[in-house]
């Protein structure tokens, strides 16, 4: 008898249905698509704090000045400015510029924006701009009066938070209105943020791409696959451990640059035995940074010996690698002197950051060579922030501290009374240097910050490890990409 059930027929039917779907429409004209891992939080520049917002908002908003690709301070809404000799009065000449809603940028908009920025009831960043005494506007110019000289002030005006917004702006969180090269079109959570070229931007050259889409792709592997399939054009920050998937692909290009991030093993300087400088120095002498860079960042990183990245070219103190040469015998001797031959401690590692976790795993092996036992404790990010960072309840941890345009914001962390000094580092000379630098002239600041870095290295405030490379991956043919030393994406400079 002939079997009436025909599996082959069912298989054919299945294939037929699927191929009908496959033979769908051809891909429509696509905008320039940049993959980012998370959504922005709010487009109100004074309320937003998420890094993801800053990198998009850089294209929408502008302040009086802005960051250049090399970390320099470039003119933006102000074409030129003047700083009084006592460092207390900043006068900015305004440019002829328009907001995205078509209105002219006036000095009263600038006054409004800066006052809103330093209003603690509205702004998250009010504290950082507390040095401002007053802001006054007079036809086409704005004068900012400071309470005391503040070296990093100009750089702080280049932050996205110091954006100039129209005086009558409402609902900026969802409908930002700025003056930047791109206007906001829409933000669909977990999908994309879409921007369009602003035709009335003050710059002579307008951006090449008329539409830019920031696609939110949470998974790095998925982002690579989307890049290979042509669905996205750029991954601005690829995890170095995935670099091998793109380095041999000829249709793609990888542009490396320093990230201006300080990755370190932070030690709780107040908790025994890390309150003993010999113990910290012993650990500093036992670390093999090259091995960590190869093992955790696949070779994409620069070794660090103090608290500033070489990306901060002018301020970076060269030659500190000799302070604590790798010397296992000397390390053992220091531990012996400190009475810590059987040192054991717990190293907290923040789970979402693969690079820190891997660094910790390798570091634990390296320290075993001098008889130190490290207990690895991998914890979730929220837990890390609450317990390690805010409560300072930890022995040691590995984390990356993001750099800024000015060394002050990075180095002030190690000042003994800084609220961000979760290392509990305490050194009077250091405190004095940072205080002096705030009031000093530019040349003196360089000198003072270099001395500060020397102290951090000698005292082994933490075990400084590396500045991982920022790997921007994009389809070949795209040009004009810049890896900024701050967390922004400049879409306006791209062309093909």
């Amino acid at each position, binding site marked *: 008898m002939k079997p009436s059930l025909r599996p082959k027929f069912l298989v054919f039917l299945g294939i037929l249905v699927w191929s009908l779907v496959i033979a769908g429409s051809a891909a429509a004209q696509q905008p320039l698509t940049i993959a980012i891992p998370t959504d922005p939080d709010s487009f109100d520049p004074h309320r937003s704090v998420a890094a993801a917002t800053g990198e998009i908002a850089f294209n929408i908003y502008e302040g009086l000045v802005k960051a250049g690709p090399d970390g320099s301070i470039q003119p933006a809404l102000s074409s030129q400015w003047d700083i009084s000799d006592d460092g207390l009065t900043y006068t900015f000449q305004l440019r002829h510029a328009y907001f995205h809603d078509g209105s002219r940028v006036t000095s009263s908009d600038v006054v409004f924006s800066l006052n809103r920025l330093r209003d603690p009831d509205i702004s998250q960043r009010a504290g950082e701009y507390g040095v401002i005494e007053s802001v006054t506007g007079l036809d086409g110019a704005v004068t900012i009066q400071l309470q005391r000289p503040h070296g990093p002030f100009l750089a702080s005006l280049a932050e996205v938070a110091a954006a100039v917004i129209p005086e009558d702006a409402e609902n900026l969180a969802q409908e930002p209105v700025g003056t930047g090269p791109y206007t906001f079109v829409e933000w669909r959570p977990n999908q994309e943020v879409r921007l369009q070229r602003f035709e009335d931007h003050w710059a002579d050259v307008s951006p090449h791409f008329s539409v830019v889409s920031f696609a939110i792709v949470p998974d790095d592997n998925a982002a690579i696959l989307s890049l290979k399939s042509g669905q996205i054009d750029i991954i601005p920050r690829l995890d170095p451990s995935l670099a091998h998937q793109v380095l041999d692909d000829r249709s793609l290009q990888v542009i490396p640059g320093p990230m201006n991030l300080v990755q370190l093993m932070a030690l709780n300087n107040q908790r025994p035995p890390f309150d003993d400088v010999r113990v910290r120095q012993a650990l500093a002498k036992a670390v093999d940074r090259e091995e960590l860079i190869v093992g955790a960042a696949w070779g994409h990183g620069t070794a660090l010996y103090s608290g500033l990245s070489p990306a901060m070219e002018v301020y970076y103190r060269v030659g500190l690698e000799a302070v604590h040469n790798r010397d296992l015998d000397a390390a053992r001797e220091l531990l012996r002197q400190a009475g810590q031959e059987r040192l054991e401690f717990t190293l907290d590692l923040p789970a979402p950051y693969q690079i820190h976790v891997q660094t910790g795993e390798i570091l634990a092996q390296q320290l075993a060579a001098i008889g130190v036992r490290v207990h690895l404790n991998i914890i979730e990010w929220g837990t890390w922030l609450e317990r390690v960072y805010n409560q300072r309840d930890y022995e040691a941890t590995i984390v990356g501290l993001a750099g800024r345009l000015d060394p002050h914001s990075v180095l002030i962390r190690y000042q003994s009374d800084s*609220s961000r000094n979760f290392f509990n580092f305490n050194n009077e000379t250091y405190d004095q240097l940072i205080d002096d630098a705030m009031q000093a002239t530019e040349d003196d600041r360089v000198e003072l910050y270099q001395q500060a870095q020397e102290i951090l290295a000698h005292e082994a405030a933490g075990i400084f490890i590396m500045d991982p490379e920022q790997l921007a991956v994009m389809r070949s043919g795209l040009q004009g990409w810049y890896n900024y030393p701050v967390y922004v994406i400049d879409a306006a400079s791209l062309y093909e």
Partner: protein
Amino acid sequence: MRYVITKSGALLAAVWFTATLTFFALQVLPGDPAVLILGTEGDPAMLESLREQLGLSLPLGQRYWLWLVSVLQLDFGVSIRYSRPVSQLMASALPVTLFLAALAVTTALALAVPLGVYTSVGRANPMRAAIGLLTHLGMAMPSFWLGMLLIQWIAVERGWFPAGGFFRPSAAGWGMALRSLLLPALTLAIPRAAILTRMVRASMKQVLAEDYIRTARSKGVSRTRTYFLHALRNAGLNISTVAAIQMTQLLVGTIIVEQVFSLPGMGRLLLAAVLQRDLPLVQGLVVVGAAMIVSFHYVFDLLLGWLDPRIRFE
């Protein structure tokens, strides 16, 4: 009627209980939204002012009460992470997840029923053995890995489907929307199909051993008619019960699959909300999710009673 009322009461109680549990579970987790938003740039003064703004400085009991009152008014509040109304976020995410789940269930059933029936009838042969092996494989494969493989083989190398992201029907047309959901649906469907195939096979085997099947065959009823009309109908009760349970697990599975395929659905929203301690959003998603699952089972129970009069409810 009495049954419907008590059942509805139990339904509401279940939703309330789940949501309350989530509310307090999130309080126990270290770190609050303010801590997570500020990250390593925060200091105590900033934390204080942000907590104030987010309404986190109120006592726990008061926050719970405020939340409960607003949920009863169907107001889920404003998401901390996305600074927009929770209801708006859910309204855009829910259709994606439902569309995906429906597609996945259809695909799973379309694969499982024919395969299950085929493997349950006739003698063992290499084809049937291979299907048996594949069901084991399908159940064992983690869906994030399966998803990656499908993206690599079908989307990147062949370019038949987008490698990720969702195309809205209103902007890209229904064809494109369907195409962007087919690979994730397949990823969700394969493990479910593997379990269902084995279920169909087991139920069919059991039914086929019954006397009335032999009677039907000896009366001269054709094989197809026996298998599909008589046997499958009786095995159907077991199959649909398992399928309903699978449906619930499917909603859980979307959390991973939406992440891998960058789909803007409920699962991805939930993951982001939990990681950011975005309490209003987590609460909204849990209430809606629990309500959906509980009412789905409720409707399914009623449906079973209607399908099979032997099942009676008191």
